């Protein structure tokens, strides 16, 4: 171990320590301050935002780091959510058919539902199904070098088709209403305050762990390769790597995160339905990431929490106003601060630092162009 005095002079280490301190501060805020200070229903609301933050983290990874603008994260969120909700439904029904199936005249439990009687299978499916879908789609699309706007449009079409399918298969999916009315979440009453509190802590912990894992991934060799693919896919190919693999793996990871987020969303909010998953909700997640700052994972998380909070607050006051505000905010962010809040903060910090020490060279701008 080196003496702390000398080590602290290294700016890299200082930045790292600052990062840890910030993470610890946010963790303290989420795990200690918020549960003590917030009334139960606000805490439940925050848990919902944290679910979105987990999905946003995946978008930050795929889009911010990998340049893949995925407009279909709602699909993966939904796959995870439905997998979880199917287990709850079957558990509640206790051998009978789930209530909505009876209403839509289904007589026998569909084969698709059979495996979800087991909680282990359901929880595994929460991650495995979205990952598998994303891996297949990613492999097909990226192998053929379909990228950029094409990829964005395809994922959006996937979201549109997914929702239409969910709505159309009433007997299998609960149709427009989705799956709701759960009476038993792993032996607890989902409406009870203690359950909601526990769910909040579970969600916050999952977010924290995934955030650290994602950071580690970004800092790893793979993460550098991912950024390289974003900034110059062909160059990476000429250097002997296969960009398709890098992109597919990342896309699958981000889908897995969205699936996990959806699965946590179900006990937290008590419903999963097509209206939460379509083109617009998927885009709203991307908006949140863009506003927070797409090139930083923390920006994605911050954006998801702040934007969803703003949406709730604003919609309560003036529903139409939220759309104006969201649209206007988005236009402003894209034109004036494409790197979002985190980018803005860094710009201000750089400007201040430069004024303080005029002789210091201007920090090199990192290349953050888009692979068109």
């Amino acid at each position: 171990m080196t003496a702390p005095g000398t080590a602290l002079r290294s700016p890299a280490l200082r930045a790292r320590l600052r990062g840890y301190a910030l993470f610890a501060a946010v963790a303290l805020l989420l795990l200690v301050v918020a549960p003590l200070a917030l009334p139960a229903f606000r805490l439940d609301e925050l848990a919902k935002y944290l679910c979105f933050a987990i999905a946003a983290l995946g978008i930050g990874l795929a889009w911010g780091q990998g340049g893949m603008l995925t407009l279909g994260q709602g699909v993966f969120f939904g796959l995870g959510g439905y997998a979880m909700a199917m287990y709850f439904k079957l558990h509640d029904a206790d051998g009978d058919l789930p209530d909505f199936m009876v209403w839509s005249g289904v007589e026998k439990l569909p084969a698709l539902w059979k495996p979800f009687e087991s909680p282990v299978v359901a929880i595994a499916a929460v991650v495995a199904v979205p990952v598998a879908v994303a891996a297949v789609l990613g492999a097909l699309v990226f192998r053929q070098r379909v990228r950029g706007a094409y990829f964005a449009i395809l994922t959006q079409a996937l979201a549109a088709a997914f929702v239409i399918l969910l709505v159309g298969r009433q007997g299998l999916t609960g149709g427009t209403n989705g799956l709701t009315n759960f009476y038993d979440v792993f032996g607890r009453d989902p409406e009870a305050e203690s359950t909601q509190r526990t769910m909040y802590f579970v969600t916050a912990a999952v977010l924290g762990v995934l955030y650290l894992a994602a950071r580690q991934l970004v800092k790893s060799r793979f993460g550098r390769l991912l950024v390289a693919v974003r900034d110059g896919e062909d160059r990476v190919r000429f250097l002997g790597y296969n960009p398709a693999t890098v992109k597919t793996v990342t896309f699958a990871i981000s889908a897995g995160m969205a699936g996990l987020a959806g699965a946590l969303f179900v006990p937290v909010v008590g419903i999963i339905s097509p209206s939460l998953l379509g083109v617009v909700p998927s885009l709203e997640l991307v908006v949140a990431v863009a506003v927070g700052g797409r090139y930083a994972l923390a920006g994605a998380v911050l954006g998801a929490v702040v934007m969803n909070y703003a949406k709730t607050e604003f919609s309560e006051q003036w529903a139409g106003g939220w759309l104006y505000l969201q649209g206007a905010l988005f236009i402003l962010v894209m034109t004036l601060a494409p790197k979002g809040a985190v980018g803005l903060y860094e710009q201000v910090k750089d400007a201040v630092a430069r004024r303080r020490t005029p002789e210091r060279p201007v920090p090199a701008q990192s290349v953050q162009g888009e692979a068109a």
Partner: protein
Amino acid sequence: MDSLLNQVPIGLSIGAVLLLVALGLTFTFGQMGVVNMAHGEFIMAGGYTAYMLQDWAGSQAVLAALPVAFAVAGALGWVLERLAIRHFYGRPLDTLLLTWGVSLVLQQAARDLFGAPNVQVVAPGWLTGRIEVLGGALPYARLFIMALAVACVAGIWLYLSRSRPGRRMRAVMQNRQLAEVSGVATARVDQLTFFIGSGLAGVAGVALTLIGPVGPSIGTYYIVDAFLVVVAGGLGQLRGAVIAAVALGMLNSYAEFWTDASLAKVIVFAVVIGFLQVRPQGMFVLRSRALT
């Protein structure tokens, strides 16, 4: 067998709607690399133009609205290009998000101006009725939309291949830098392209009033399918767009016929993904040696 043939006119008419909706996109997306999510709201603007003109033109509003809607939607597009999009060239993904913000604002504006419920445009008398085609009944309105689609494609084709501004447009599409050094004012061509592309959305909006009501969210129903047509047809390719629109229309109608409406969209999506395995850049590709 009869019912199989029945699907042909249905498929063709879906294809005609898709084509009208996607035609403008092939230019704004194809030539300028702008993924204009607000295209759907320009369609909406066209529909509302027809609705507004009803007071003045009565039941002939649809005919009167065609040129007016072209101008209104075109002007909206031109303003959008001038104010925002021109700062975004070369960043297609950012234009997608930017124009989505615009589309949210326009939708809410329509809700505040015209009210949230859908409004109806009365079709002219000579468009009510239907004819028997291949054993199925085809409403005149659908026939009119097909004719309109054909007329728009013919007009665009003539414009691109026979007129000077059209030639400049093709030059910019094929090689922007070379066009610029050859003295083509690319910025002005971009403005015109955006005007025409958006104007076509307005025309599509008028056509849509013939088959259904107009509402603030009408654009969102068509925008995703329209982009799929462009992706399958190839960027900026007129014939690609025509073939892709008809093919997707047919596929839609047959998939719905054999399965149901909810599976049809999934099938269409799967077929497009499968098609991109063979032709990753769509049906027709502008050959270029440029590297991405």
